[in-house]
């Protein structure tokens, strides 16, 4: 198992290198001079040239990229051009808000999605099933940012119940995470429903009934664990989606998180900040997916068996 985790971690390295290389190239090709960004519009050409020399901006592209990666390995992602604070600190200050929204959204999506999906399947074609299926369809088709705007209109502008902008209290977190959760919740509902429907038609469910197990026991003891296997994958994938979505929704609700940080760094051509935050997001997504896969092996004995050697 450890060997597997190690292998997966190693595999993340080329991915992150690739991402950083592409971003580095793009930022290098786009117009705009970092030295000017740092010194502002009123600096003289001589000052700018001096700074370029000092920052090594006149070096060959590959030399600069190599230097960047060399520093990154030691944990130094450079300083922001704009604020001149270390990029690592900037990320550390902003990431918790993003994480909070994403996790809260995850919680909503899972805690509502899975039970609703199960009820939907067990009571197939009932009113509850039909309405939840319709709702799920609706939520998958609505983009998160639009739902966010609708929520702001309703709860902030009309009812004046929740604050529209900011990230200070849990009340601020509510609308962003709900708008973010909606689409994932819909996916989880549909996934849970369909796998559950498949599972309850399996022979081993009939075997359980043939033993004299009551319907509730059949569902909770025999069906759910089997049905949740594919759902875990969906949830895992949706964590990455949620993180990505959080970056967008932050901009709708004016939350200072990783997403607003990225957007601002693009606007201001703050190369170290942009590459640093994107690489960070990529690492987080990779670790989350790895975590989900590891979890999977603990739920499914068939997969676990591939990793755990027989102890006899």
């Amino acid at each position, binding site marked *: 198992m450890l060997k597997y985790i190690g292998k997966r971690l190693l595999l993340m390295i080329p991915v992150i290198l690739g991402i950083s290389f592409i971003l580095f190239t793009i930022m290098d090709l786009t117009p705009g001079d970092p030295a000017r960004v740092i010194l502002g519009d009123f600096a003289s050409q001589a000052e700018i040239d001096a700074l370029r020399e000092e920052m090594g901006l006149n070096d060959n592209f590959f030399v600069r990229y190599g230097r960047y990666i060399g520093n990154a390995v030691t944990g130094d992602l450079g300083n922001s051009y704009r604020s001149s604070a270390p990029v690592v600190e900037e990320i550390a200050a902003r990431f918790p808000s993003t994480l909070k929204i994403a996790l809260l959204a995850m919680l909503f999506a899972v805690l509502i999605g899975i039970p609703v999906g199960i009820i939907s399947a067990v009571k197939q074609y009932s009113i509850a099933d039909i309405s939840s299926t319709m709702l799920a369809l609706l939520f998958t088709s609505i983009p998160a940012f639009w739902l966010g705007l609708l929520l702001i209109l309703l709860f902030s502008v009309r009812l004046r119940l929740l604050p529209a902008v900011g990230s200070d209290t849990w009340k601020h977190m509510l609308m962003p995470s709900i708008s973010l959760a909606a689409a994932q919740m819909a996916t989880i509902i549909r996934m849970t429903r369909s796998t559950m429907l498949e599972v309850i038609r*399996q022979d081993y469910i009939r*075997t359980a009934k043939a033993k*004299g*197990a009551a319907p509730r026991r059949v569902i909770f003891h025999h069906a759910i664990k089997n049905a949740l*296997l594919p759902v875990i994958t969906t949830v895992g994938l949706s964590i990455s989606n949620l993180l990505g979505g959080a970056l967008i929704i932050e901009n709708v609700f004016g939350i200072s998180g990783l997403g607003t940080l990225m957007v601002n760094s693009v606007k201001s051509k703050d190369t170290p900040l942009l590459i640093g935050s994107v690489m960070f997001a990529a690492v987080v997504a990779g670790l989350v997916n790895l975590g989900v896969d590891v979890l999977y092996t603990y739920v*499914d004995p068939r997969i676990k068996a591939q990793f755990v050697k027989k102890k006899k």
Partner: protein
Amino acid sequence: MEERLLTIKDLYVEYITDDARVFAVNGIDLAINKGETLGLVGETGAGKTTTALSIMRLLPEKVGLIKSGSIVLNGKDVTKASEADMRLLRGETVSMIFQDPMTSLNPVLTVGDQIAEVLELHKRHKNKADVEARVDEILKMVGLPPERKHDFPHQFSGGMKQRIVIAIALACEPLLLLADEPTTALDVTIQAQVLALMNELKQNLNTAMILITHDLGVVAQTCDRVAIMYAGEVIETGTVEQIFSGDEHHPYTVGLFESIPDLKKKTRRLHPIDGLMPDPTDLPTGCKFHTRCPHCMEICKTELPKPIEKDGHLIRCHLLEGGGRKAEGSETL
């Protein structure tokens, strides 16, 4: 006089789906005494599984319906029992082994847990230790080392899985075992082993069994009596001797035996019955076999033949009417 365990009278079962109404079982009568083995034989779609599921009352919900008739198991009418009563019967009084051992076990539970479950559901033992001891005992009984109870189904071969399924079915020593083609999914050498095991266990526990199979050789070896089904009806039933060597038979039985090479000396050539099973959503009138019967007469097309009995050997065919046999069961038709 042997003690009667199961009596099925005039049972009708239908499947009602969105686009069709399937007449799966059409007025069958069956009876089994304690400890007896009945072979249930017939082509695919004849209604064998449906009959077994009706006894368990495990027909697919909302789709499979018992329309009429009675199934009296150990003094209790299954068709009228409450769902709670049925749960007490299932696994305890009557157990079922399904056709495919590969899919009959829950992949995420250890086999030990799956055997223990049936014991716990029927409160067979006072504490966990006793349950575990019984699980070990049952595993040994079906020829598996008890240590393997901690393993999951995917760690066993097909034959071993079927042994586990048998262990689950027999854990509570039921009075009746319904075995739905228990060996069809296994390869030939394993088939014989599993059958021998089932036979031995049912002798030891004095369990009655309905053995559903396509294999007439298996029937000859293991069964006391045989019922032959065609299009949801039992068209011939009798002891193994009566079916295998009696001089009078239903034309379908004759065809069935002729389709097995080497079993009857007269015809060694494989001789499948011409034609197909009738469409169960649109069954023919009269004798359901008349579309394929080589002896079909005018009356066969319109009138359902009554079962004619002689020494417990029942045949449902117009050819035998007026012969040495007396008409029987006419009130149920």
